[in-house]
């Protein structure tokens, strides 16, 4: 359970991160607002409350790892890293520009604090399994967190990896599903009948926890429980809204990959009180 101060800090951090996301996308004129905004609470919680990290030492050997399997949501990762102090906030408005340390999709070679390069969907869980296996081999106590999108579950490799997580009893791994129900060409139900993702993971042998992805207390409860499950991996199905926090972006598939125009960005920042 989070105390009042923790809750207030996380809520404020989330607000700042939403502002960062809008500002960086307005500057780059290209990128993915919807799926970045739906993951803000999770990233705020992990980077400011849960994960063992040192912004001065991004390669800390026993740091917790975070893999953004839905790599197009890079803006939310960059917002978290910037706010946390991994690099100067000035870099945010260089997103996607030539020579920027902030590439369109996470690039571990260019951005301090990025643990894995992603972008081609469906690979992050496999990468996370590899990290978790290495941790167990070395008896290194780090925990691996991986965030996937619900459209991303249509990639077959996710299910290959889901088998691996269970087969190797990777309890030092916690996965998260950004269950915002929307992909690009429509809802996940319309596009591929991707219903009941929790039941699918449960059938594969995962521990499944359903939670409100925008409620810090619920996230705290879910993640605390998840990291205590032994002998199998856990997935936290986060019920979220794509574009959360910006009224005209919420639950709109059209805001998947379109950057806000200057006047839209101004309106968004006004809504956030920034």
């Amino acid at each position: 359970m989070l105390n009042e101060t923790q809750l207030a800090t996380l809520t404020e951090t989330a607000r700042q991160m939403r502002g960062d996301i809008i500002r960086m996308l307005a500057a780059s004129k290209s990128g993915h607002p919807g799926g970045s905004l739906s993951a803000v609470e999770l990233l705020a919680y992990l980077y400011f409350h849960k994960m063992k990290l040192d912004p001065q030492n991004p390669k800390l050997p026993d740091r917790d790892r975070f893999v953004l399997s839905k790599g197009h949501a890079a803006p939310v990762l960059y917002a978290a890293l910037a706010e946390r102090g991994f690099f100067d906030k000035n870099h945010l408005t260089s997103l996607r520009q030539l020579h920027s340390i902030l590439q369109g999709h996470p690039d571990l070679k260019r951005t301090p604090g990025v643990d894995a390069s992603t972008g081609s969907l469906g690979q992050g869980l496999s990468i996370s399994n590899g990290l978790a296996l290495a941790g167990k081999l070395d008896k290194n106590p780090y925990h691996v967190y991986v965030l996937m999108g619900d459209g991303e579950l249509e990639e077959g490799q996710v299910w290959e990896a889901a088998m691996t997580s269970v087969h190797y009893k990777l309890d030092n791994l916690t996965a998260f599903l950004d269950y915002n129900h929307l992909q690009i060409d429509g809802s996940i139900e319309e596009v591929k009948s991707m219903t009941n993702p929790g039941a699918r993971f449960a059938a594969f042998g995962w521990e499944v926890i359903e939670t409100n992805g925008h409620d810090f207390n619920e996230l705290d409860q879910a993640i605390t429980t998840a990291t205590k499950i032994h002998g199998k991996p856990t997935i936290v199905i986060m019920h979220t809204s794509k574009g959360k926090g910006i009224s005209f972006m919420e639950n709109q598939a059209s805001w998947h990959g379109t950057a806000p125009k200057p006047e839209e960005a101004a309106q968004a920042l006004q809504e956030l009180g920034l």
Partner: protein
Amino acid sequence: MSEKIATREAYGSTLVKLGETNPQIVVLDADLSKSTKTAMFAKKFPERFFQMGIAEADMMATAGGLALGGKIAFASTFAIFATGRAYDQVRNTIAYPGLNVKIAATHAGITVGEDGGSHQSIEDIALMRAIPGMTILNPADAVETEKLIIAAANYKGPVYIRLGRENVPIIFEADYQPEIGKAVKLRDGKAATIFATGIMVEKALQAADELKKQGTTIRVINVHTIKPLDAATVIKAAWETGAIVTAEEHSIIGGLASAVAEVVVQNHPVPMEFIGIKDRFGQSGTPAALLDEYGLTAKNIVTAVQKVLGRKI
């Protein structure tokens, strides 16, 4: 030269040796460990062997994750699956961030034999060559395999190693020390040069011997590292011999022939002939019958040299 050992066999035993001395070595396989010979490592170091099942994409990205966790990851399956099925994983998860994964792919080329065209990779080198930062090794015999596997383990970055199913003659002595990136001159000559790789090296030597009997002295270069190509050796051969034949158990599109031609054309154009698979899929047959059917013979190398000599300026 009478002993014959498959390069995949040498790979398996070298992995065990590596496992004994380096605790960071881990090995992955996709239900083919008896064929790829990773089973040898698995038996000795079960805690460092990861059976991934029939899931090559998962295997490659998991290897990437293990490398991110500080391991030296060897991932094995057949060449067709390593480079075909898992291409995006190799390209985006391993090569793009430059991870320390060694893709040791066996059963390359048409000498896979009876399994047929769906299993015979005639294009793996081409696929890997187009990936920036991918080092490509194609050892010619068991000795070279052992040395290059060890070199690959000590090399920082992604490496693709092409291994074969069939037993092949030993060419090199036990004290042979190949260096990644350095082609090896096996015979000297001025009339023409044969650049060969993998199982075609032995056939190139046979061809050179035959041509010597006919009074023509041919330079033979073993290209064990196809990428990065030893361009200096290629340019030198173009200048000093004026005619080049390439020989590979691979399509003439995108593999050794292309790699050498790219350097030759940009530096010192000379006539070239390519011995390789002429843009055809493989098919079922014995390895010997297939090599003949697809023109991968010493006899054809001789003919190619004679042809290119006729085109010399």
